[in-house]
């Protein structure tokens, strides 16, 4: 092994960069004391993690889902139902939510993975919408009224903090790092290669021994599991959930967009995209305020269109292409 593999070097560098980033971000609360700003930080980290999860199925495996709100909602509802009805600590609730979401993903995937391209996208939208409708009408889960998370006092055991946002911030950071790490590990694993092969050409993948259907199912289950963890976290963070606030279509979109912006199917894309998109959304929303509602949507939409048309490989994709070119 004389000639060091450039790719393995790059992998090690990525890991180092990620650790440094996590360490730096962990120090941010020393500077950022404003509650609103901390709130934006938490949301940014959460969407980085969620988009990273979405990226596993839609970016790496190429099955574009616009129904991930279903898994997000499943995580939120399972966590809070277990917490409020049975007193189960949210830690177990999130894990259970993840498993429920993975199961739903498999059940949804079973018929839908036979569909191609646009058919699949539309199926994910409609099924998530059907789930939303069911939650609106399920009385046990509070129906349209939702669930108010009861106050049990600040503690890590109950994963509930009213006085400070910081514990949520550190959890969100850990969540984002774990989601990134999972992707990092996938990139150099058999599943990772299989998923990318399925995305690029399913027929060729099959001829090389890849079980395409099973690969998609595995990607969907993993993606849904991680997304549901985010749902459980969000429920604890905002301490009130209803179908509108955790299952509406905008969540599906918000999970997809950071990855699209940063670079779909890339390791850093979701994190980079979330770091730009979420603060920008919050900023425009607070600037435009009540009067000019709509400005945030316009900027947002233009950004999405611009990226899709101008830089379809995303920010990270465009950068790495430029680096490859200058290296060659």
């Amino acid at each position, binding site marked *: 092994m004389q000639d060091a593999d450039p790719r393995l070097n790059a992998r090690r560098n990525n890991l180092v960069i990620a650790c440094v980033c996590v360490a730096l971000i962990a120090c941010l609360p020393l500077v950022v004391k404003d509650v609103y700003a901390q709130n934006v930080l938490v949301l940014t980290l959460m969407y980085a993690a969620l988009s990273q999860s979405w990226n596993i199925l839609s970016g790496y495996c190429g099955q574009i889902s616009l129904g991930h709100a279903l898994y997000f909602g499943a995580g939120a509802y399972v966590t809070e139902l277990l917490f409020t009805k049975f007193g189960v600590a949210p830690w177990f609730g999130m894990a259970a939510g993840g498993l429920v979401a993975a199961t739903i993903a498999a059940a949804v995937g079973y018929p839908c993975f036979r569909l191609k391209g646009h058919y699949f996208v539309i199926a994910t939208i409609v099924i998530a919408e059907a789930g939303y409708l069911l939650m609106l009408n399920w009385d046990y889960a509070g129906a349209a009224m939702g669930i108010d998370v009861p106050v049990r006092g600040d503690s890590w055991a109950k994963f509930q903090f009213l006085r400070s946002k910081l514990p949520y911030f550190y959890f969100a950071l850990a969540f984002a790092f774990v989601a990134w790490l999972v992707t990092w590990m996938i990139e*150099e694993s058999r599943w990772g290669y299989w998923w990318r092969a399925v*995305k*690029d050409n399913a027929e060729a993948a*099959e*001829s090389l021994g890849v079980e*395409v259907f099973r690969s998609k199912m595995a990607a969907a289950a993993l993606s849904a599991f991680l997304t549901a963890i985010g749902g459980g976290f969000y429920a604890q963070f905002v301490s009130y959930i209803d179908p509108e606030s955790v299952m509406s279509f905008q969540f599906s979109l918000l999970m997809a967009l950071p990855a699209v912006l940063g670079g779909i*199917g890339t390791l850093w894309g979701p994190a980079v995209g979330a770091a730009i998109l979420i603060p920008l959304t919050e900023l425009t929303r607070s600037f435009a305020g009540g009067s000019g509602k709509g400005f945030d949507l316009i900027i947002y939409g233009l950004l999405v269109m611009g990226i899709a048309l101008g830089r379809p490989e995303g920010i990270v994709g465009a950068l790495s292409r430029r680096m490859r070119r200058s290296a060659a």
Partner: protein
Amino acid sequence: MSESLLDVRGVTQRFGGLVANADVSMQVRKGEIVGLIGPNGAGKSTLFNAIAGVRKPTEGSIYFEGRDVTDLGAPQRCALGVARTFQVVKSFETMRVVENVMVGAFVRTASAAVAREKARATLDFVGLRGRENAMAGELTPPEKRRLEVARALATEPKLVLLDEAMTGLTPAEARQGVDLVRAIRDRGMTVVMVEHVMEIVMPLIDRAVVLDLGRVIAEGPPKEIVRDERVITAYLGERHRARSA
């Protein structure tokens, strides 16, 4: 007679009212290079897909190493040792060349390091050394053909199915292709190739199976095949007559 590796028994493939293969039977022995030839629309690709497991035949069965594999899909057949290339190349365009080949290697190992080593060795073997880190989408068409072969070889097949692997190559490139096919056989693999360019195939293959209108019309060593009346009328007909006239 050496043992049979592939045994196609009475395969019929219907698409609606169209019969693409009618009661096709053929055997391939270990270590052979067999050419599957015939005019356009003879059903070569259909038979190829049946052997590779892309589409289950309407009737008949396929045995590989004495085992009935008719009901197995393409991935399982690949795991048993059947690998193929495509007539229209299907590279994983957004992946690097070495990564393309690794996908194939992963059918035998779960370790990325092992798969990468094997992919490198395979790329050396097919003559793509130095192109490992290029994106597959950036390769020239002849390079893409080699990549397809490398990907298939990385699955450690016993039987390699080459679908018009020489089509579109210059004569010089085709000669290199011929050398590559020989090298594959020398490594102990068996080769079945569909090919249009007769001049290239005939000296290379041990045996030809000729299809016309979905049926096997002749089978034997190339020297005999080119003299076979049915083959001449069905396939070589016009050109042969033109030449003798």
